[in-house]
Structure formats: C-alpha cells, structure tokens
C-alpha cells in the first residue's frame, strides 16, 4: 500500500509521517508540492509544519500548490487523505472539510502530550481504534482552535463525523472540544494533534498514534 506524504516548503513532520507509514506496514512515497502527479499512491498524508511560512493564513497558499490540484480532485473522488495539524488547516482552506482553524484562544503556542477520546471509528483513518478509546499523542500548534457555525457543528455531531475530542483540557479553544473531523465518506480526515509523533516508545509519549496509519493500511488492503 503506497501512502504519499506531501512536502511543502515549510513542512516539518513529513519525515515522521513517512516513518509512521512504514511502521504501520505501508510504503511511504515522498510527494513534492510542485509535483503534478501523485505517483500512483493509494492515499495521501498532508503533514504538519508551516507551509509557505503560514503567510496570509495557515494553509491558504498551500491549497494552490500544483500537487494540491490533484489531491483535491482525487480526494473528491474518494482518495483517502489525512491532514495533520497544518494538513488539517490545508484541508479546511481547500473546503474538503468544513470549518476553519484559528488562533489559539489564549494566544500561546501550545506543545503538550494530549489525551483524546476517539469517537467516530468508521473512517479509513480511525478504524483500528475502539469507539470511546482514550489515547495520548503530542499536540503542538499556535492556530489550532477549530471553529465552524452552529449548524455545521450540529451536523458534524449529528452525523457522527467528530473523530476525536480533547480530554482534560481544551488546549486551543476548539469549539465543542473538537480535535478532529471526517468527511461523510470517511475518507478525508483532519486532526490537530500529531499521531505520527506517537508511533515508537523511544520518542513518543505512547504508540497510540500508530492506529491512524494502521487503519489506512488495513482499509486499503481490504479494498483491494
């Protein structure tokens, strides 16, 4: 299973995402922001970082990168895409997911090991988890406050599209403690915390993040 990881100018977590894909049993494929094709990958990860220096708005320039033309078109046809942190911001800016990520309500950059409750596990990226399972993975963002209008939030909750919620503390002012959401198709998932930093006990607070990548590899094998 080939999972592409896009590197934009300013991406930070592309190598960790590639490593997580490999540890989950997939084959990571490096994609470049200037690429026009997706090299035959079965899924795409948009990693964390500060694409294009976060100029204008986080993810606002990245959505116009050549590679994103393909990612957006293919995602609308069902290609699985996981956006982590900056990748989540890019998915929202691209209107592949509803809502937006705004400045943390306390204005500080936050970096902590964050407890989450997994909710929707019927997606390509979360099916290895149990509903209600609690996990701990790193969170690091300055603009991670998830916002959307009440109608959108009600629809996300009504259709069970919230994939994870913050526990203990709400680290960035996200409405209704939302840490991640899914498209109705279950193929496009965005989340603010970083599962790719919690895949090995040597360097992470847990290995709880591996499930996102195992989920995708299992789904892709099952769909073949």
């Amino acid at each position, binding site marked *: 299973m080939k999972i592409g990881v896009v590197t934009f100018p300013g991406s930070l977590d592309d190598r960790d995402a590639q490593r997580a894909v490999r540890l989950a049993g997939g084959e990571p494929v490096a994609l470049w922001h200037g690429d026009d094709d997706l090299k035959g990958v079965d899924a795409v990860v948009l990693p964390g970082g500060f694409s294009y220096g976060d100029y204008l708005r986080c993810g606002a320039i990245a959505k116009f990168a050549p590679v994103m033309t393909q990612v957006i078109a293919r995602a609308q046809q069902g290609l699985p895409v996981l956006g982590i942190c900056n990748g989540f911001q890019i998915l929202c800016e691209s209107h592949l997911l509803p809502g*937006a990520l*705004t400045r943390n*309500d*306390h204005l500080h950059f936050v970096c902590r090991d964050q407890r989450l409750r997994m909710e929707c596990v019927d997606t390509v990226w979360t099916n290895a988890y149990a509903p209600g399972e609690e996990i701990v993975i790193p969170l690091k963002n300055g603009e991670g406050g998830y*916002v*959307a209008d009440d109608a959108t939030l009600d629809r996300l909750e009504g259709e069970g599209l919230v994939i994870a919620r913050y526990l203990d503390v709400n680290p960035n*002012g996200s409405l209704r403690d939302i840490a991640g959401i899914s498209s109705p198709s279950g193929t496009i998932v965005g989340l603010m915390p970083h599962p790719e930093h919690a895949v090995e006990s040597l360097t992470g607070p847990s290995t709880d993040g591996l499930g996102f990548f195992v989920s995708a590899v299992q789904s892709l094998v099952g769909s073949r």
Partner: protein
Amino acid sequence: MPRVVVDVMLKPEILDPQGRAVMGAFGRLGVHGVADVRQGKRFEITLEGEPTDEALADLRRMAEELLSNPVIESYTLRVES
C-alpha cells in the same frame, strides 16, 4: 496609479484573541473607555492600468478565494483614486 484596497476582518461571531490582547494593552497603558478591538488585514493592490470591470471582477475573486477565508472572514473592496 489606481489602487484597490481590500480589508479583511474576522466575522463578528468569531473570537478574535489578538484584538482582545490589544484591548488589554489599552487598559494597561491608561486608555479607558474602549468597548472592543478587532484586528484585521488590509491589502493595498496597485494596478498597472485603469480599474476596469474585468480587473475588479478578478480582484473580487481573489478577495474571496485567496485574501479571505469566507468561513471565518468577510471583506470589503474599494478603489482609491
């Protein structure tokens, strides 16, 4: 040369922690009687030629698709002579 100004503001219902921090500074600096501060972005776009309907339509599209995020922001566009 003609200039087009686009002002982008967070929608009223979106929390603006930066504006709130600025308002806090007002108080610490002894300026009182301020009810609210909202922080936005201003783009000054200088045109090579006249602001034709076509040029303004292009800029309006840019204001909607690039300069602002309609999910959380609104914009105004005006031509300055």
